[in-house]
């Protein structure tokens, strides 16, 4: 092998090794940070063990929002028609959080079956329903609250 070729070979091997390491880390990190989306009905069919993070989506059940007197703790019920899950959240709620509106909550179930949310999202304008929520509602046959799709 000529010196030039040898050098090129080393360079190519180094690059391959680097790309290999990078993609392994990336893939591992992706696995770690993947959050599944579940509707209350899906949750009822396939329970998720307490403590595992996922995203819960559905409508805020009208009349279910309860604040606790002196703290920022809020309880509300997320429903998709047939099933519902109680959510606890400590913090300020987003501007568009409203009873009867779609929300996505990120967090995990507690042993008691309550969903402890670390983040609550209610995005964009009022016509907007998070697409996962809209799909989940359609699947559970709860079609009365469909999103007006404005693109």
């Amino acid at each position, binding site marked *: 092998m000529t010196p030039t070729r040898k050098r090129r070979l080393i360079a190519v091997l180094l690059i391959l090794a680097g790309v290999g390491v990078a993609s392994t880390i990336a893939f591992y*990190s992706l696995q770690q940070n993947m959050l599944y989306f579940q509707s209350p009905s899906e949750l009822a069919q396939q329970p998720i063990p307490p403590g595992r993070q996922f995203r819960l989506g559905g409508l805020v059940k009208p009349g279910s929002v309860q604040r606790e007197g002196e703290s920022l703790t809020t309880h509300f019920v997320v429903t998709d028609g047939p099933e519902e899950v109680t959510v606890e959240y400590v*913090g300020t709620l987003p501007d568009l959080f409203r009873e009867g509106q779609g929300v996505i909550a990120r967090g995990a179930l507690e042993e008691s079956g309550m969903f402890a949310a670390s983040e609550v999202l209610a995005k964009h304008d009022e016509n907007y329903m998070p697409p996962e929520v809209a799909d989940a509602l359609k699947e559970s046959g709860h079609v009365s609250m469909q999103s007006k799709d404005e693109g």
Partner: protein
Amino acid sequence: MIPELGQVALIGALLIALIMGTLPLIGASSGNQRLMKIGQTGAIAQFLLILTSFVILTWAFIVQDFSVEYVARNSNYQLPMQYRFSAVWGSHEGSLLLWELILCMWTFAVALFSKNLPDDFRARTLAVLGWVSAGFLLFVIFTSNPFGRLIPQAADGLDLNPLLQDPGLIIHPPMLYMGYVGFSVSFAFAVAALLGQQVTRDWVRWSRPWTHVAWAFLTLGIALGSWWAYYELGWGGWWFWDPVENASFMPWIVGTALIHSQAVTEKRGTFRNWTLILAITTFSLCLLGTFLVRSGVLTSVHAFASDPTRGVFILTYLAVVVGGSLLLFAIRAPAMVQGSNFAGVSRETLLLINNLLLVVMAAMVLTGTLYPLLLDALDAGKISVGPPYFGTLFALLLVPIAVLLPLGFYSRWQEDSLGRLLRELLVPGIAALIGGLATAFLLPKAGSWGIAGVAGAFWIMTSCLRYYRQRVSAGRGRRPSRGETGMILAHFGVGLFLIGASLTNAVSSEKHLRMVAGDSFELAGYNFVFEGTRGVRGPNYVADEGEFIVYKAGKRVTSLYPQKRRYANGQVMTEAALDPGLTRDLYVGLGEALNDQGTAWAVRLYHKPFIRFIWIGALLMMAGGFLAATDRRYRRSVTARSENPVADANLAEATA
């Protein structure tokens, strides 16, 4: 009647774009001067037509012509005048028209400032730009016509999304698009070079300032977006790794790689194919970004179903641009000559590593952004990729980039010795050590990432200053070139950005709490006193405005007035209040009223140290890009230069 003229202008522009895309190409291959000249004329005509159509749409907003559906959906009688302008690009159709207008501006500029180029190359470049424009116009006319009528006419419009009623949002999209579309020039250059089967260093030199300018605009656009998200969304964050943000960040990363690769190709003739690939990739990512954001794919792949024509068109257009140019590359590139050789330790090697790291970073962002879409499309479950994925990988890749960055500009072309480089970098190394120790000592909260970030920043910034001083004294009175000054300025900006990003994330304090008038809370040494709220009225909203007085060590620092606005169309928006400072921002957001009397409120308080460094750093990067683009050597005639190889060699020597 007038809106229909806008549509006619669009169709006219499409016809011209099609002519621009064909006749000059025929001219270039047959050597027909007259056909080649059509490109220039076409660029001017196309620009004027699109400008007309853009002015007509703007006019419809100014006079509130609610018979135009797009106007009716994005404006109403109460909308203040300045937002009627920004409402033009506030939604899908208008923002595509803005994109097209900016593309025509760039094409026009290319036609104007390319007199030094060989005729056939110039004709091919303009033809490629014509094709890009034609594809885009087809998309606008057939799927996203902004001039569609609403019959019967609406009595009043729906109002512009309140999130977009903000000065930051008036200029953010145009700047971002200037960047996105600006990369079409280096793309057109690459494709034209492939078509003509020749890439000379002179032509790369010609394309460099265009890349610099596009990159600088994109930097500004992204920085504006981040700044806007920070103060307008009311959550105190400056980057969320949201798919929409990622869409603009990917072309920026690859564009940065392109700038560095172009430097090597211009100076040494190496990396030619790589430069072409990067130019193609950057623009492809710009298109991908525009379409991801604009097609609604990101909210859900199923959003395609709501308007299949748009989705199918987008995919076809992307496939033609990306696939076509890569195919051309595959056929033509191997035939092109390579440049001179280089040693293991040399500037070429370091810039190669820079490029690899940046491309890996872009691939990482692309994977995280598209993976959920892919799974969803395959019906394999709905997932989202959390910000920690991006944050961790970004930080990990930033480490080697920061460590190697000063070596990049200290090293010599072709061959260098590691010992010499290490001796040069002794002082920056000591500065990094001092910076890191000082952070650990003064800001114990900073943690390992905070310390590493400041150390890295000192390492980079000291190198920049020292290198610049050496260049000044080596020049014996003659100042370093603008290219070099711009380069140093941009890298100094990277240092400032590092300080801001690492410290803000590590040392910020925040508190969500319930407050009643008279309550106070101490955060990071600042005492926030809540004085209560009062009702205020704006042009198209009513609001509750809170008053917070902030004290530090008993002395009054500032008063902050966050608002909770309710817009005419019923939408509720938080308007955060902040007190900016070089070393810290104080930031208050008003949540919702917690009781019926409206005396108790949910409140968010933030103390954000060094967050301004992030945007100051980005602004320096931008300034560096613009400055480098004005370098004198880009203005010299290309043909005159290539006749003088001796001067060429001298220049390479002088700038090495």
